[in-house]
């Protein structure tokens, strides 16, 4: 049980349940936000070791959210993984340019997802 805290920002209920399930089972504490605005609000409350951000969301999309996170002094050092159904290079590049640390294509393999979360939060194997 790592107890590391992850904020998942994703508009799909099923996807949120998937993260909650896969990451929760691996010992992470998972909190959810249903769109970019809510994500930013929760993130600002602080205390997350990692954020997993969906790209296509209502109100504020993932690109926008990531670049806002990077402009917030309290969140600059928080690792951010963006996740999207688009496998195109251009999308990944855009996410990196916005300030993401890693880009995953949906549907994410559960094992890889957990491994990525462990690596990015510094959690032991």
């Amino acid at each position, binding site marked *: 049980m790592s107890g590391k805290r992850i904020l998942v920002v994703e*508009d*799909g*209920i*099923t*996807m949120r*349940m*998937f993260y*909650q*399930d*896969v990451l*929760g*089972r691996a010992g992470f504490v998972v909190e959810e936000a249903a769109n970019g605005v809510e994500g930013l609000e929760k993130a600002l409350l602080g205390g997350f070791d990692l954020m997993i951000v*969906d790209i*296509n*969301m*209502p109100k504020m999309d993932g690109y926008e959210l990531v670049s806002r996170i*990077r*402009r917030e002094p309290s969140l*600059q*050092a*928080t*690792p*951010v993984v963006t996740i999207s*159904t688009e*496998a195109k*290079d251009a999308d*990944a*590049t855009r996410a*990196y*340019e916005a*300030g993401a*640390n*890693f*880009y*995953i*294509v*949906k*549907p*994410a*393999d*559960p*094992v*890889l997802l957990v*491994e*990525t979360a*462990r*690596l*990015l*939060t*510094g*959690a*032991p*194997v």
Partner: protein
Amino acid sequence: MSNLLLARFIPEARELLQISASGLLKLERNPSDETAVNEVFRAVHTIKGSSGLFDAGALTRLVHAAEDLLGEVRSDALRIDSALVDMLLDSLDQVGQWIDELERRDALPADADAVAHRMAAQLRRRLGSQDGEAAGAPADGAQREAEPAPADAVATLPPALLARLPASACLAAFRRACGGEAVHLVCYAPEPGCFFNGTDPLQAIRQVPGALALDIAAAEPWGTLEDLDPYQCNLHFALLTEAPRAEIELAMRYELDRTTIAPVRPRDLVRIAGEPSDGPIWDDFRETASAFLAAGRYDELRKAVAALRSVAGPTLWRRQALDWLDAALSAPEPDPALAAALVAAAGSGRLDPPPGGPLPTAQAPASQPASQAADPRRDLAHSVLASQHRSLERAGYDAERLASVGTVVENVLLSLGRDADRAAIQAAFAAAREARSVAPVLSALAAVLAGAPLQRPEAARALPETDLQEFATEVAPGPAIGGKEPEARIAAKSLKVDQAKIDLLMNLIGELVVSKNALPFLAKRAEETYASREMSREIKEQYAVIDRLAQEMQGTIMQVRMLPVAEIFDRFPRLVRDLARKLGKRIDLVLEGEDTAADKTIIEALGDPLLHIVRNSLDHGIEAPDERRAAGKSATARILLRARQEADSVVIEVQDNGRGIDPARIRGAAVAKGVVAQEEADRLSDQEAINLIYRPGFSTAAEISDLSGRGVGMDVVLTTVEKLGGQVSVSSRLGEGTTTRLALPLSMAVTRIMIVEAAGSLYGVPMDMIVETVRVPRERIRRIKKAETFVLRETIIPLLRLSRLLYLPEQPRGEADAAVLVCQVGGRRVGLIIDNFREGMDVILKPLEGVLTGIDGYAGTTLLGDGRVLLVLDLRELL
């Protein structure tokens, strides 16, 4: 994945489909509605994303095609029109059906792939072909052929399917594919009922020329022997063929919609199995082969392969890799990436995914030494660090970016337990901040990336240098890694409960409400039989408490069962649109009060009557645009669907501004159809004439259209609504429009009845049928021939004796007054002579069961407080 996850996905998908459909309708009305485009796009996108978690590739693919199309609309590359909306709505309907199927059977139907392929192709035809549309069929075919190895079709290939084909056939196919010749996988899912229309599916697939291997498998798992239906075709065929696509299509031309044809890439065919082996001979081979490969000296490479093949044991894994390599090299111009991957495989004893697509890696023998087995964690760490390197390199010095990169790199090293590297990296970051340059971090990162444990295995280095960018995108698909599927666990915040459970709870509470009625009887007995007034009082006090609790429980469960009318209203925009298009009418549908809630039973039963009224309105009420203009109205008609709560009922109105109902026409039609006699028709007021539409067998449409049903008219609406305890009324003004008003009880779980005595027994009569109760002096009962009547406030009311209706012996009564129950049945008033009135009560009606179900005249039974069964009459059936 798991059932819980699927259970979550199904309602989500349905809601999103609904959002998409209504958004598309908005969009059709106003193509520049940006909010609507975004809404639809996002909904479809989310379905696509979530569906990827399940084994529903066909669904994902179809949704993906729709999403791409919507993406074009969003970026203004494509203009939305009605045809496009039709296509998208059809696709969403299909997805909706699949969702139903997923809910029922956890799987898509066998033909899903074929259907998805066809519909997706149709959608994609609109993509970027705005002006090429007119090119016609030949161009169309060519375009399909030329589609760059349709990413879709390749993705359809279930790897498991290929894995079932014999390795020798795969190798033969591989040899051909490497030589640049097309190899196709034909998947054919015959219709389950195909035996009945003379199709022999095996014969059909055998018509395809150039077969290399045929696999026949059960489409669904075989059930138990008892459930097995031998007349249903439960087979799925997969054929690997060297025939060109055109020939396959020709051979399968009658079953094309149930067939998918996908080109097979050479790398999809590679399958290596065998025993592990080791030795210097393999190392030597790897070295020399890599050198030949790098220099493009294929002839020498071929010789080296042949030499080693002749000495290595044929059962070895590495030797088999050589067979594939030999096949790959047999092409005049071998694919260097493929050859490199196979050289590496033979050299290292395992298969690495080449760039551009994953190879099936799972075949590597399990007994491989640990140091050589693929380590997803190490590769992942490498990807993550490479990504940090790349993004820093691109961004240049940027304190903000450096912060998160620093966290990530440190965490990765921490997670891997590489403390020494961590210290070095920390120093590099400090130096970078000081110098305001990323150079120190970049070189430290490069060193870490090149460092021993993180380095990719030697064999992989023979691969062409992969752009760092690719690491990130390659990571996700990785289907072969791990394979453990976690079961879902929900953090329950709101509960989703099966309707049946609510219904059960509801019934139990109903029983409780009824059985508490026994307490007043008990109190009475305590007082009368046991002469204990005190006990009687205590029982009554307890009764008051239980009564209150029971009422509260009942109220609460009612709330749970309440649904908004939006449940039914939401179907109408689509329906009205489709019908209006079919009829060439223009209609603006307005919905009001969708939040009004009513019991689920009411809501569910309301759908059909409402549908009928709206169809009537569209079909008969609304005029064609020309006719409307001629009448000085706007060409677009308006239908208003409005719901609101009025006291204990929910009122739903359907209002149109069409031509209205012509009482003269109704009279004429009613006489012509023999519904009423001419004299009667002449006597009717206009409103009464309009009410004739409720008579069975009445339909004013000169010809029966396919919209408003055949022969069933408003009488069906009336019956349904009355069965629910509601009322229907129609008001109309000629030339201005018609309003149909339905009033229904908010809930129907509890029925209010009045207990009456007849022929010495007790019966219940639903209160909503009773207009009033009167005592009529005997002398005021008049006989007209055999029938009895009496006059109530200047209206003649026919009288019937309940005991006679029930075929019970009449007991002569000497009272001066007759007790008369005045009831409203089917729009007419009738007086029922009974023996006596008793109290009213709330009951839960139970339908008659068993052999009693066939008996007419009874709505059901209920329990009285003292345990007796009370029969509740259905006056409509009785009269």
